[in-house]
């Protein structure tokens, strides 16, 4: 699509609300639009509607900017093609996020040689809170730091924590919201089924 049309489309979209970053016309084929301007008073008449389909089941992974612990770069997760991925959005201030980490760590270590990897995207606004937490509660899987929240925006994350299960072909297969102890069996089962494909 010619650049000038892209620009015009974005301008029109911006008129009506915030356009989530990181979307790609090529990938999703549809503008991801969120209407956030208030209708009259924001409370209780606030209307927040999301027409985002950027990170739903069967979509390809969006790209977003996040810092890895070694270098800042835009992650497009293409390096993980052929492996089963669990992209986990977490923060230190979210207790279920903290509770899920030892379990994900042990699952990842157990199934790693079958091609399973966990990538955790930390969303603390102060990255040093996260590094301090990780110093005393280390995990073996890679952590990306996204204090500005660009990745969750691209993925349209709705809850904390959120886990995106990605199949070997790079498509999102399953989205898991939140974490309770009772979810462990389900998570394990889903990962195993994706590994078998």
């Amino acid at each position, binding site marked *: 699509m010619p650049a000038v049309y892209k620009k015009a489309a974005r301008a029109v979209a911006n008129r009506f609300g915030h356009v989530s970053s990181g979307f790609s016309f090529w990938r999703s084929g549809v503008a991801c639009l969120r209407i*956030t*301007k*208030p209708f009259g*008073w*924001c*409370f209780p008449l*606030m209307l*927040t509607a999301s027409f985002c389909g950027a990170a739903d089941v069967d979509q390809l992974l969006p790209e977003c900017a996040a810092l890895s612990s070694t270098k800042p770069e835009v992650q497009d997760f293409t390096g993980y093609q052929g492996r089963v991925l669990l992209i986990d*959005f977490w*923060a*230190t*201030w*979210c207790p279920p996020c903290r509770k899920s980490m030892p379990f994900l760590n042990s699952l990842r270590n157990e199934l790693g040689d079958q091609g399973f990897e966990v990538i955790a995207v930390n*969303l*603390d*606004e102060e990255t040093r809170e996260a590094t301090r937490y990780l110093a005393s509660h280390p995990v073996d899987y890679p952590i990306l730091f996204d204090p500005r*929240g660009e990745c*969750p*925006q691209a993925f349209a*994350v*709705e*809850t*904390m924590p*959120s886990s995106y299960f990605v199949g070997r072909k790079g498509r999102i297969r399953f989205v898991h919201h939140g974490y309770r102890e009772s979810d462990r069996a389900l998570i394990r089962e889903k990962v195993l089924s994706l590994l078998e494909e």
Partner: protein
Amino acid sequence: MNSRTLAAVILLCLVLPLQGCGITVKPWQRGNLAKREMAISPDPPLRELREQVYLSREATDGGKGGSAGGCGCN
């Protein structure tokens, strides 16, 4: 102005300006709200202790649902 009018004015002054927000808060932006100091009551035992002192020396009942234990009033 009488007491009630004053109360209404204060309440409106505190509440109204905060209505025109128009900002949405994303689930991952709730870190600051999760801080202990941002809770409605970060320290329930201390708040109860203070309320007990006030309850026994003033004529006003606590505004929020209370554990109405005893008097200790005298």
